[in-house]
C-alpha cells in the first residue's frame, strides 16, 4: 500500500522532470531576441485596452457551486459502489435514496433557473 504511493511519487518526479527537460532544451537551442512589440499581448494586432485580469461572468461561479455539491457527493458513492455486492438490500436502497435526494437537488437548481445561461 505504502509502496504504491511511493511509486506514484517517483512517477510524478520523473513525469515533471521530462517536460522540464524538453522545455529546457528548447530554451537552450532557441534564439533570444526580445523586443517590445514581440512581447506585447496578442490581440489580433489591436492594442490591449485596460486590464487583462477582468471580472468574469457570475454564471461561471454558479455552475462551479452546483458542481461542487455533486462532486463531493458522488465521491461518497464510491465506497457504496465497491461494497454493493456484499451489502444487504436495505443498504442498497439507502444508497438509492441518497441518489434520489441528489436528483431532487438537481431538479431544485433547475427550477430555480440556475442552469440557464443568461
Amino acid at each position, binding site marked *: 500500500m505504502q509502496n*504504491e504511493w511511493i*511509486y*506514484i511519487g517517483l*512517477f*510524478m518526479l*520523473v*513525469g*515533471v522532470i*521530462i*517536460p*522540464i527537460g*524538453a*522545455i529546457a*532544451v*528548447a*530554451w537552450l*537551442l*532557441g*534564439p*533570444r531576441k526580445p523586443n*517590445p512589440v*514581440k*512581447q506585447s*499581448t*496578442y*490581440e*489580433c494586432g489591436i492594442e*490591449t485596452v485596460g486590464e*487583462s*485580469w*477582468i471580472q*468574469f461572468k457570475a454564471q*461561471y461561479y454558479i*455552475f*462551479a457551486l452546483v*458542481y461542487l455539491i*455533486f*462532486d463531493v457527493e*458522488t*465521491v461518497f*458513492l*464510491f465506497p457504496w*459502489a*465497491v461494497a*454493493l*455486492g456484499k*451489502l444487504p*438490500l436495505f443498504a*442498497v436502497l439507502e*444508497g*438509492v435514496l441518497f*441518489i*434520489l435526494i*441528489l*436528483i431532487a437537488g*438537481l431538479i431544485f437548481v*433547475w427550477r430555480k433557473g440556475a*442552469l*440557464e*445561461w443568461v
Partner: protein
Amino acid sequence: MNFWNDPINFVSVWLRSLFSGWGMADWLVNVLLAVMGIVVLIICAMVLDIMLVWVERKVVARFQDRFGPNRVGPFGLIQPFADIIKLLIKEDITPVGADRIIFNLAPILAMTAVLLLWAILPLGSVIYGVDLNVGVLYIIATGAIGTLSIIMAGWASNNKFALIGAFRTVAQMVSYEIPMLVAMLIPTILAGTMSVNGIVHAQNVWFVILSPIGVLIFIISAIAELGRSPFDLNEAESEIVAGFHIEYTGMKFGMFYASELLHTFTFGGFIATLFFGGWRGPYAEIYPLLGVFYFFIKAMFFYWVIMWVKYSMPRIRIDHMLAFNWKFLTPLAFVLLIVTALVDKVLAQTNFHATGMLLANIIVGWVTIEILRIHARGLRKKDEIPAKPSTQAAHHQPLRGEK
C-alpha cells in the same frame, strides 16, 4: 518462469540480482528498479505521442479529402520529428505582464497530469505501473490536475482571449466531470472494485454489453473532458484565436499539444479498460505482450472514434454545452446508476445477470428517447403557434406605395 509469461518480473529479477551483486542496499535497488521502469514507461508514452501527431495529421487529412504529410520519409513518417526540431529551435516568448512562474509551470503540469495516468494504465495482465486500489478515483484526480494547468495557462498569460478560454474550461470540464464520475461508478459496481486492473479481471463479459448507455455517457463526457471538438470551446479558433495557449510558443506550446493528443489516447485506453475488456483477448493471460497488443488495438480504435467525432461535428455553443450536460447527461447518468445498482443487486446470483442488465439498459434508453421525443414535440408546438400569424402578416404586408 520464462520471459514470455512474465516479462517485467523476469527482467526485474535479473536486474535485482545484478545490482545486489554490486553490493547495493535493498531499498536502493527497489528505488532504482522503480525509476528505471518509470523512465521506460514514460519514454514509450512519449514515442507513442510523437507517432500520434502523425496519425492525427494523416487521419484528419483523409477526413478532409487531402493527403496529409507525405514528403518527409515514407508516408511522411519522419514529419513529426521535423515538427519537434522546429518547435525546439523556436524562440521562447513570454508576454509582458505575464505571471512568469505560473506561465512556465502550466505546460509542465499539463504533460505531468497526462503522464501520471500512465502509472495505473493496465497494458497487460502483469504489465502496468502500479495497481492502485483506488484507481478510478485516481483517474478523476489526475484529470483535475490537467484542468488546473489549463486554468493556470489562461490566467497567467495576461491576455483576454486566454482568460476567456480558461473560464470556459472551468465551466466545461467541471460540469462534465459529474456524468464521467457516475459512468465510472458503473464498472465499479459491476466489478466490485475500484482497481483498474481488477475491473479488467472482472470482465468475463465485457461491461459494454452490461451497460451500453454507460459507455456512451463515458465517451461523451471523456471528449468534453479532453476539450476536443465538438467541445473545444476552450480553444475555439474562430472565436478566441487559440484560447488558453494563445501566448505560448515553441516547446511550451508543443507540451500542450502533445499532452492533448496523449490524453486522448490515454482516455481511449481507459474506455477500453473500463468497458471493453482492456488487455483481454485470446492467450492474453499466458502471453502478456499479446495483451499489450490487444490493448493498443482497442485504445487506438477509441482514439480514432474520438477523432472521427472531432472532425465531423461543428462546435457547440456554450449554453447548449452546459444545458446538454446538466439537463440531459447528468440526470440520465444518475437514473442509469440507480437502475444498475438495483438490477445488479437483484440478479447478481442468477443466470440472467447479463441479460437483465442489457434489458434494463435498453429500457432506460427507450424511455429516454421517448421523453426527448415528447419534449421536442412540445418545443415544436410552442414555436409553431406564434410563428403562423407573423409569417402570414409578413406575406400580406403591402409594399410601400401599393394600395
